[in-house]
């Protein structure tokens, strides 16, 4: 499965429940398009093995995602990502807003004029994209 | 299964190995010697057992040959060696064996077979114990048990006799019952080595009804006055210790004082002690008159003294009546040639029979004679029974040969 490499190097923190961290990881994958709508996702056993978590936790994570309609399972056929675009889109915006909220909270402490702030953000963001691309090309050549 | 071969092989090996050895090997594989009749009545030979050695290069094996076959004591079961082996001297006495069977509880803890007396009515066990425990004035304890065979009543008495000369050893030689008086013929030795140690023979007379000491007679014999002469004594009691007998026999040697070793006998005396009268008579002269010049092997049956002398080339038997002070019948005297023997090994008498063990061309032979008339009742020889290939074996005649007569 092509997705593996992006999965095996997940690191969890000890404080948040592991299954929630798994769900979050899924959402990130979706938002960044590494997972597409309708794509078949690994069985919970495979997932457990890939993430080095025990099957019960994987099970819990899948249950959570099913409740959030993030994944669907018809009968015995393997679970797949939902085809519901609105939901997928909402995930993306949810992730973004979460991140921005956190950012805003921290930056508020030093009140910077919005324009200045936006410039800095824009600049930094582009730089980080640039470095990421180079890293990937380097990886491809190797 | 093949994985387990090693264990299977090992077990099979054990079963086969030990099995064959103990089922066949050990049982059959031994030389069998037998006493075979040559002439006369077979039954006469049935009591004889010849003891000798069997050797096939390794150390000698002690073996006993009888008319039935041969027995190797060293090969007896360890159990019988340890348990029936111990105190066997008791069972060797036919009279004691009988008492052990009949009166198990009375015989318990009574092991000194010279202390027994038995007649139709009474069994008496009279033992003497020296009590010289520290601090106590030394004393002799005469402990007497009586069993009335008809009533089954058992009585026990203890009588204390003070011990003037501090005896180191005390030994009951014989016990007799005369009327209602128990005679204990006791040998007492004072401390000190053989020569230089004082010896006394006592006849303690005890009332069998209350255990009181009636009389303590010390026997006096020989004379110690002669210097550079020492007295050595030995006592002869009735062949069957528990049987009643009127006499006890004492033999006393006047021996030249030992400087560092045996210097030779100067004179020897034979006394008979009569329990009834308490008289000690010196028989030496009368016996000489009767033609008995040498007291070799001597035994007492009632009032008959049997004197047996033998060398490699002759054997001579005399019977002397203490009461009449005469020999009862003609001496029996045989030479090796008359026996057809290369060498006479030993002779012994039992119930009026004279048994002789001798050998000719390396084959042990035995003969049985009637002591009353000297008639030869039986002759036999010890032969090897086995495969002819190994028939070269005889009982090893270099080793000591010995003969025992069962009762």
């Amino acid at each position, binding site marked *: 499965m092509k997705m593996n490499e992006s999965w095996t190097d997940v690191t969890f923190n000890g404080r948040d429940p592991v299954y929630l961290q798994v769900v979050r990881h899924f959402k990130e994958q979706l938002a960044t398009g590494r997972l597409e709508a309708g794509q078949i996702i690994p069985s919970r056993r495979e997932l457990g093995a890939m993430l080095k978590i025990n099957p019960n936790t994987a099970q819990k994570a899948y249950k959570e995602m099913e409740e959030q309609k993030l994944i669907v399972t018809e009968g015995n056929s393997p679970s797949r990502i939902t085809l519901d675009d609105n939901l997928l889109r909402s995930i993306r915006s949810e992730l973004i807003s979460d991140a921005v909220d956190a950012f805003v909270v921290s930056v508020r402490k030093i009140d910077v004029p919005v324009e200045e702030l936006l410039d800095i953000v824009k600049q930094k963001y582009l730089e980080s994209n640039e470095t990421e691309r180079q890293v990937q090309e380097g990886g491809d050549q190797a | 299964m093949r994985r*387990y071969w*090693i*264990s299977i092989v090992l*077990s099979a090996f*054990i079963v086969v190995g030990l099995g064959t050895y103990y089922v066949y090997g*050990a049982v059959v594989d031994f030389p069998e010697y037998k006493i075979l009749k040559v002439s006369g009545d077979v039954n006469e030979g049935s009591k004889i057992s010849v003891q000798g050695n069997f050797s096939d290069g*390794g150390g000698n094996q002690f073996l006993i040959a009888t008319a039935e076959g041969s027995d190797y004591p060293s090969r007896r079961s360890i*159990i019988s060696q340890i348990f029936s082996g111990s105190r066997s001297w008791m069972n060797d006495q036919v009279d004691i064996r009988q008492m052990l069977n009949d009166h198990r509880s009375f015989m318990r803890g009574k092991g000194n077979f010279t202390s027994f007396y038995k007649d139709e009515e009474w069994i008496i066990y009279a033992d003497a114990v020296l009590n010289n425990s520290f601090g106590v004035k030394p004393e002799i304890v005469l402990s007497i048990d009586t069993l009335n065979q008809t009533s089954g009543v058992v009585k026990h008495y203890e009588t204390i006799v003070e011990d003037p000369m501090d005896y180191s050893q005390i030994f009951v030689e014989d016990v007799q019952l005369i009327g209602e008086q128990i005679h204990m013929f006791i040998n007492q030795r004072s401390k000190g080595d053989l020569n230089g140690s004082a010896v006394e023979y006592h006849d303690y007379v005890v009332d069998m009804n209350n255990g009181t000491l009636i009389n303590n007679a010390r026997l006096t014999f020989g004379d110690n006055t002669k210097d550079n002469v020492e007295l050595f004594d030995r006592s002869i009691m009735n062949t069957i210790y528990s049987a009643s007998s009127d006499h006890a026999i004492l033999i006393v040697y006047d021996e030249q004082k030992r400087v560092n070793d045996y210097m030779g006998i100067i004179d020897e005396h034979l006394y008979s002690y009569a329990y009834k009268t308490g008289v000690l008579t010196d028989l030496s002269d009368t016996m000489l008159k009767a033609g008995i010049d040498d007291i070799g092997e001597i035994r007492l049956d009632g009032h008959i003294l049997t004197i047996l002398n033998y060398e490699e080339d002759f054997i001579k038997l005399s019977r002397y009546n203490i009461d009449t002070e005469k020999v009862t019948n003609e001496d029996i005297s045989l030479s090796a040639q008359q026996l057809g023997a290369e060498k006479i090994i030993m002779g012994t008498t039992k119930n009026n029979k004279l048994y002789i063990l001798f050998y000719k061309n390396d084959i042990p032979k035995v003969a049985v004679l009637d002591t009353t008339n000297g008639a030869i009742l039986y002759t036999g020889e010890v032969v090897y029974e086995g495969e002819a290939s190994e028939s070269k074996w005889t009982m090893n005649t270099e080793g000591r040969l010995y003969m025992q007569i069962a009762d």
Partner: protein
Amino acid sequence: MNRYLKLVHMEVDRFKYILAGLMSLTLICQFGAVIWWTKSAVSNRESGAWNNGGSMAYSLNPSHNGNLSFTEVISNTQFLFMIPILISIGVLAIYVFLIWYRDWFGRNTFIYRLLTLPIARRHIYFAKLTAILLFIFGLVSFQLALIPVEKLIFNLIVPSDMRDPSYISNSIYANPALGMLIPWHFDSFLVYYVIGIIAVLVIFAAILIERSYGRLGILYAILYLGISAFLLLFPMVGLGLDNLNGYLYPNEIFAIELVMCVAVMAVSVWLGCRLISKKITV
């Protein structure tokens, strides 16, 4: 195949090299002794050295006609014969302890596995016991089997005209050690080896006591050994077996001794099984 037998096999398998070693040691020593002594004896005779009083070994035997018998070989090579026997006895005696302790000590403690096998634990006890007996009797019957072979070797070396026939069982008795090992009388055989087995059982019980009660266990174990030894020896020495005025008759003493043996045996087995299934600790 029954699991108890599998355990027995496993124990045998773990000892096989030592067993083989002991057997080959015995074989080498004894064959060597027989060949060496016989050859030298034969050459002695051929050179005629012996009848002018050469080697003293023969002059010991009074009735010697110059011929050789196998029994004579055995009685003149006692030391070399005894060495392997004594070594074997020593090794087995040590292994009576090791067969248990080797499972506790060392990097891999096999006892964990043994005790968690889905079988009654007494099987472990009896398997080890059976193994020890197999080793003992294996060595004994090996020794037994060697003797005829040694006699054969003797016959091959000595020309028949210089040979005296001899009895295997008498040859065995020419060496006290062999006589003890393979007594001529089956009763004696039973007595010797039953005593041996009782000793093994008592030691097993002592070991399991020590294994069950930690440091205090050592004390208990020694105590148990002492008591057992006393019970077994007392009737023989304490009841005046050969004291002529002894109160008990020999056959009564024998009965008591028998009872003692049975009692000690039974208690040891019972204790061993109970400890290993209830009290043992790893």
